[in-house]
């Protein structure tokens, strides 16, 4: 008994010592410091090695480009470039750089840095290279003087300007000094930065995230309200992000949380949830190149067998916008008069009756870990069973699905997924998803119709946006009438922030992760 009392006393003293060391978590953050909880890890800071939305914060805040997408609907705004000119044949783009822009080490941003940046993107073959590899030859970009950059494209392109923001300009002199074994400074840049952006890196740990301080000499200048410091931390668990936000550990997190979490945040008096329609459509690919899915009657039957209203209103609690065509509602080129499909089993059966030949069990692909794709697959399976069609759901990780998508034989019969905004041009959607020259690459539907393709090819080189818009509207309608896929919704962004956070500017490219205008009240 004696030693038990001794043990009890020992445990008590340990506990008391622990309590004294625990302390109460305090808000040790500076007044003008913003902390964001991100779902993706910041594995690398190299802006030319990655091109995903999950890690966009490092690129947007520490780097500048010739142009920038701002606000919603996104406007292409001159940034490092003060003006540009497109030649009559659409093959030469000349940018004039503004004077006075500097990198974080104080050296001026010059045309040679832009040339180096595009050459680096082409050489690394990573990140956004697919936007440029077909249109720009290595060595073709020129810098006739310190403030003029000339892009000489292989062929006329009306899309190129929309993709220019993806060329993040890096400090060429600095990176050349860090090159090892011809790596273009890749190893060094993966954990450092060489930018001119609104914030300069102060700390980075791939396991934690990055921290940056305001770059006072940024060429855009600063008003009287700004953040002195930003911190983007990796917090993978949704629960941890939400609880951390409610607890005051973070000031903001991503805007694509499940609706039950959004409601929870909205109910808190210290939270402010901003709402915007983004440009990220949710749809199902249909393998148009495989029998019997090459039969438009079957595709129409599938399109009428999906309960759009139930999915949007019941499963997603009305948190998204119905988008019946392969172009987001809120961008030019969207055919506003297109009705799309509805849940109509009678019509589905009607079209099914016209299908010649047997219909095998349909494989519906979903992305493992992405609940909505699995829910959509289950809902579709339910509809198909009501019209007498057998199906099976195959949920696989994105790393597996993305491989199968490029192989005509391995590709699923149908696959639920999203199409994000890489650049704000209708070509990003209908122009790539249904173009014949993109089959097996960005066209994973194996859809190729000459009349649609003609419209898309014309739009790629037509300089007049109104004419381009007309082409994309027609093409989108044709693909929809042809049931090239099942188009369900356009995503809404629900950005949760601490109510002290002001000045957030949302753009579908960037998802409000550029902090230049944000301040704490």
């Amino acid at each position: 008994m004696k030693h038990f009392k001794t043990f009890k006393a020992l445990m008590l003293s340990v506990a008391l010592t622990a309590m004294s060391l625990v302390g109460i978590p305090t808000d040790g953050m500076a007044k003008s410091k913003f902390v964001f909880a991100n779902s993706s890890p910041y594995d690398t800071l190299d802006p030319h090695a990655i091109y995903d939305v999950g890690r966009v914060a490092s690129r947007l805040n520490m780097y500048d480009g010739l142009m920038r997408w701002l606000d919603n609907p996104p406007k292409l705004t001159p940034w490092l470039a003060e003006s540009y000119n497109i030649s009559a044949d659409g093959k030469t783009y000349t940018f004039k750089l503004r004077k006075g822009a500097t990198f974080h080490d104080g050296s001026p941003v010059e045309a040679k840095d832009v040339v180096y940046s595009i050459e680096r993107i082409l050489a690394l073959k990573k990140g956004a290279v697919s936007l440029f590899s077909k249109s720009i030859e290595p060595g073709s970009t020129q810098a006739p003087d310190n403030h003029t950059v000339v892009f000489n494209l292989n062929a006329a392109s009306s899309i190129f300007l929309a993709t220019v923001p993806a060329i993040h300009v890096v400090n060429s002199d600095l990176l050349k000094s860090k090159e090892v074994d011809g790596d273009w400074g890749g190893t060094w840049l993966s954990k450092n930065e060489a930018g001119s952006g609104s914030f300069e890196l102060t700390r980075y740990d791939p396991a934690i995230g990055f921290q940056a301080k305001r770059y006072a000499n940024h060429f855009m200048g600063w008003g009287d309200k700004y953040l002195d410091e930003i911190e983007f931390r990796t917090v993978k668990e949704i629960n941890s992000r939400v609880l951390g936000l409610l607890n005051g550990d973070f000031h903001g997190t991503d805007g694509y949380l499940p609706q039950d979490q959004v409601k929870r945040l909205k109910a808190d008096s210290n939270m402010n949830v901003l709402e915007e329609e983004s440009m990220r459509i949710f749809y199902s690919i249909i393998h148009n190149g495989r029998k019997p899915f090459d039969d438009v009657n079957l595709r129409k039957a599938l399109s009428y067998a999906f309960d759009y209203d139930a999915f949007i209103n019941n499963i997603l609690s009305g948190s998204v916008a119905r988008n019946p065509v392969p172009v987001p509602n809120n961008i030019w080129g969207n055919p506003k008069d297109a009705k799309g499909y509805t849940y109509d089993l009678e019509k589905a059966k009607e079209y099914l009756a016209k299908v010649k030949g047997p219909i095998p069990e349909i494989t519906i692909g979903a992305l493992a870990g992405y609940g909505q794709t699995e829910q959509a697959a289950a809902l579709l399976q339910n509809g198909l069973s009501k019209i007498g069609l057998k199906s099976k759901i195959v949920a696989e990780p994105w790393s597996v699905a993305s491989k199968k998508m490029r192989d005509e034989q391995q590709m699923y019969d149908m696959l639920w997924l999203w199409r994000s905004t890489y650049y704000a041009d209708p070509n990003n959607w209908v122009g790539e998803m249904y173009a014949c020259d993109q089959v097996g690459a960005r066209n994973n539907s194996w859809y190729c119709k000459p009349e649609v393709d003609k419209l898309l090819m014309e739009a790629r080189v037509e300089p007049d946006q109104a004419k381009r818009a007309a082409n994309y509207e027609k093409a989108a309608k044709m693909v929809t009438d042809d049931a090239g896929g099942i188009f369900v919704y356009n995503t809404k962004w629900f950005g949760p922030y601490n109510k002290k956070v002001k000045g957030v500017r949302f753009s579908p490219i960037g998802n409000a992760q550029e902090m230049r205008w944000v301040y704490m009240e």
Partner: protein
Amino acid sequence: MLWFVPTLIGLMIITFTISHIIPADPVAFFAGENATAEQIEALRARYGFDKPLHIQLVNYLIGVTQGDLGISIYTQRPISEDLLARLPATMELTFMAVFFSTIVGVPLGVFAAVYRNSFLDHFLRVLTVSGLAIASFWLAILFQLLFAMELQITPLQGRIDGWGPEKITGFFVLDSLLVADWESLQSAFSHLILPTLTLAFPAMATIVRFTRAGVLDAINSNYVLYEQAMGLPSNLIIWKYVLRNALIGTVTQIGLIFGILIAGAVVVEAVFDWPGLGLYAVEAIMNSDYSAIMGFTLVTGAFFIIVNLIVDILHGIIDPRTQD
């Protein structure tokens, strides 16, 4: 020690085979959905994934002998660099969990045996069964809700407020002490509490059960009867003679637990956003980052073998008879 290298080679071959059987394409995944076929093939050649599998394996094993664990396709950094950066976080958490579970579990096991069939024994039985049955992720979230959200006496997640003390060893508690950074020490310690409790709970349950069984077994020995007859104090008999014999099985379990906790840390690190090897492994698997998966397996496999070697040595010290 003789089996160290063959065991690791076997582990590497199995892991390599399994990771490559999965029908994923890490290059295409990394290149992004907009990548062209040419871009993907160029990247595949750059990382050596265009070579036959057996050549890739041989090249990898040769690289390992030279200390080169490859480059992460995802981070573009050497795997060894990524692992070294994350190792201290997992080691610190694991050490704390093992330490806590041992200093609490062993005495509780002794008491459970000494006061066999008492209320204390029954209570500990319920506690230990719970420890073995409860899912760690559920326990972790419960702890977060109770201690961090409701009572607000511990942080919710993460390893430290801010970025930690000046890096010497990478162990935040130790580094804070070494540089006398008391604020970081307090923060590091407070962040350790919930993940340590979560990780230690099932480990403690195992230690309590093994210690109890070992003590009960030893208590009924003839030498204990003799010592009692000789009039030795009971606490001396229990804590010096009985415990030493009872600990043989417990020490073995502690060694095994060490290795198991490294694997178990994956779930705990995910819930608490603890930036260690476990989280790194999860990301590597989801990204099909072959080199990272192999590197993690190599490190944890080597660690497990070393820990078991230490356990064998300790066995010999505690019970010299095993050296004969």
